[in-house]
């Protein structure tokens, strides 16, 4: 089992060390191959997953009662995740060999990508929360490296920094949560944590607090309100990176973490409610922003935030298997959307503004049809993957009594269909708005890019059939498979006739969304501008993403700037002006005094060390 992890790591290591000497051909062969091997190995072990095996590798930390092993957990949940991660990652690697072909740091790119896959596998395979945190930080690091991959571009390196810092805020909460768990449960093992929570060893209030702390970590990594601001900026990275990290795998880590600790979260009702509310509001909020964005990748970024909001929502209301189901289907169709967008950007020579595209359907048929399938899937048109998973979430929320949240979720489904078909119609239909030169270069992407698209499109189309709605079949393969890892089974009763109506309603809304998009962007392309002129306030609000970046800048960044400037103006200056030996000079003097300590003489340092040790020992012995 450990070999699943070793191959990506090995390949990444090789590429880092020997990357300079390897030809592009070898690199584009080894990097996807290592992932493919991992995928095959995990397929091979798949049948054993239902038993839930733990592969212990090494006894990592053993302090008193606390024992933390480096161990891999191979159970239904992790097996599904590993298959998804390696499978999607492999396809994206293949795609990237075509997409990144012109780039000069070809091998560096694949080294990071392989490293990322390795850390992601560590995250999903870990059996203890500490090891999960290692993977959690590892993927964060790789995400930072890959967002800032084109570090010559200032905006790219700034976006990388932003992602890193925003994630640190979330990680702080996550870390405190982990420590609290270690303190109360005296173990980091997921099974023991869940068991302790379910059996009531953790008081409910504390479980809620821990749950909220962990969820703060999830909001950072999974880009939820209020820490989502890094994800749209993360689109500065190469498109395969956006597809792999910021759509399919890493950003769903928060959902995975909540589902992994479902025992804890189902006890902590308050935390679960917070999770559900934040999730559904993020879904709605990000969908409204996605309507107005003109950058093709930004639309997809907000769509990702919105879809993850759905998953978080599902996890919050206790529909854990639905959350993971949506996670997997989303991985397929969102990776496909990003790769399709990448294919478009590739053909357009780097232009991402949808206002400069149009009628691309004629030039790139494969990209168009696969993109269309993904669009159908995400908007929940019956028959495609997204339909099944989204409906399961919405039905669960309805039947668990969260009617208000359910109505917001349904509204979001309408918005989803609208913005994604707005994107499709703007890009692939209508007038050709690009300039002549770009038009001249338009071409279908190479085979290495289109084949992954086709495979992903296949899964985006049929992936949903593993879990049919309850009114068709009471037994869902998916739910039965994941049954074992869920600690508190939900007692929801799905009333078939109502469920059927709900499904009809949401499908109708999806079709409505598509229709509105068609009417506004194909039939009457002038109308959107008229509308946006009619309600300039709302349009501007949405276009500028509710000014959240500006608000954050104002609330969190500016006080520091203002504060320091204020101190300079109102404190430093008068003091310096007023007195001859002002505070500035005092500081300078103190600094000089302190710098005398830095003598550069080794012996003085040894003396100070000895002095410290002697002092400490004496104090200890005197029993102070």
């Amino acid at each position, binding site marked *: 089992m450990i070999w699943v992890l070793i191959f990506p790591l090995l390949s990444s290591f090789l590429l880092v060390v020997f990357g300079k000497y390897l030809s592009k051909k070898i690199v584009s062969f080894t990097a996807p191959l290592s992932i493919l091997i991992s995928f095959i190995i995990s397929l091979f072990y798949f049948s054993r997953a239902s038993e839930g095996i733990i592969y212990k590798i090494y006894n990592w930390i053993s302090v008193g009662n606390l024992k933390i092993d480096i161990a891999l957990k191979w159970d239904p949940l992790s097996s599904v995740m590993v298959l998804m991660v390696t499978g999607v990652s492999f396809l994206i690697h293949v795609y990237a060999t075509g997409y990144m072909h012109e780039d000069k740091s070809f091998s560096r790119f694949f080294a990071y990508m392989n490293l990322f896959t390795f850390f992601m596998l560590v995250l999903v395979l870990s059996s203890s929360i500490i090891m999960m945190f290692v993977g959690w930080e590892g993927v964060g690091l790789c995400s930072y490296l890959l967002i800032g991959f084109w570090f010559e571009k200032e905006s790219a390196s700034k976006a990388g920094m932003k992602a890193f810092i925003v994630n640190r805020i979330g990680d702080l909460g996550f870390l405190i949560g982990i420590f609290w768990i270690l303190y109360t449960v005296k173990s980091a093992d997921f099974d023991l944590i869940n068991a302790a929570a379910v059996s009531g060893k953790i008081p409910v209030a504390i479980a809620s607090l821990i749950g909220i702390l962990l969820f703060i970590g999830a909001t950072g990594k999974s880009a939820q309100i209020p820490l989502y601001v890094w994800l749209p900026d993360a689109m500065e990275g190469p498109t395969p990176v956006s597809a792999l990290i910021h759509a399919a795998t890493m950003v769903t880590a928060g959902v995975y973490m909540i589902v992994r600790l479902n025992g804890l979260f189902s006890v902590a009702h308050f935390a679960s409610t917070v999770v559900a509310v934040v999730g559904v509001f993020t879904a709605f909020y990000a969908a409204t922003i996605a309507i107005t964005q003109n950058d093709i990748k930004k639309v997809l970024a907000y769509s990702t935030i919105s879809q993850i909001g759905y998953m978080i929502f599902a996890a919050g209301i206790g529909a854990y298997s639905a959350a993971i189901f949506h996670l997997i289907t989303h991985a397929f169709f969102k990776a496909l959307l990003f790769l399709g967008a990448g294919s478009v950007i590739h053909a357009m020579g780097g232009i991402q503004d949808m206002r400069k595209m149009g009628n691309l359907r004629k030039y790139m048929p494969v990209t168009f049809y696969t993109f269309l399938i993904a669009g159908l899937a995400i908007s929940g048109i019956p028959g495609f993957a997204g339909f099944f998973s989204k409906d399961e979430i919405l039905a669960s929320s309805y039947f668990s009594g969260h009617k208000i949240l359910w109505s917001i979720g349904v509204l979001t489904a309408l918005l989803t269909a609208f913005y994604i078909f707005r994107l499709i119609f703007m890009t692939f239909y209508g007038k050709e708005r690009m300039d002549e030169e770009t038009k001249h270069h338009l071409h279908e992407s190479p085979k290495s890019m289109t084949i992954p698209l086709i495979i992903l499109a296949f899964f985006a189309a049929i992936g949903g059939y593993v879990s049919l709605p309850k009114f068709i079949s009471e037994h869902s393969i998916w739910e039965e498979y994941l049954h074992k890892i869920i600690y508190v089974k939900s007692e929801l009763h799905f009333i078939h006739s109502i469920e059927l109506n709900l499904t009809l309603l949401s499908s109708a809304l999806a079709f409505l969304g598509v229709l509105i998009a068609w009417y506004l962007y194909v039939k009457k392309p002038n109308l959107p501008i008229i509308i946006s002129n009619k309600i300039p306030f709302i349009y501007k609000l949405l276009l500028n993403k509710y000014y959240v970046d500006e608000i954050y800048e104002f609330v969190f960044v500016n006080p520091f700037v203002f504060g320091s400037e204020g101190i300079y103006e109102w404190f430093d200056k008068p003091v310096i002006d007023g007195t001859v030996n002002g505070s500035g000079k005092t500081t300078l003097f103190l600094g000089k005094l302190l710098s005398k300590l*830095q*003598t*550069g003489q080794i012996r003085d340092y040894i003396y100070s060390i000895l002095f410290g040790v002697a002092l400490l020992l004496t104090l200890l012995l005197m029993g102070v």
Partner: protein
Amino acid sequence: MICGYSVIFLSIVLFLIGIAIFISKKTFIMMLIGAEFSLNAINLLLVFFSKVKNNLDGQIFVIFSLTVAAIEVATGIAIAVILYRKHKIQKREDLKELKG
């Protein structure tokens, strides 16, 4: 029977002698010898406790400590030699780059 106190006492004395050598000598190589001396005192302590507690961990740590000390000597000497060859520095007073 060897008295346990005497072994620990010997270790303390050797450790302090090592530090004394380290701070009183002026050339890098002699300082290195002092450091080695102190390390050896600690090794003695490790072996002693390993025997008293009948636990092999102590001796295993001595093996590690020996190895690391060997590397340390090699690197330390390389630095000393390079300082001498490039900058003609062999006394620590001459090394003033670290001064604040």
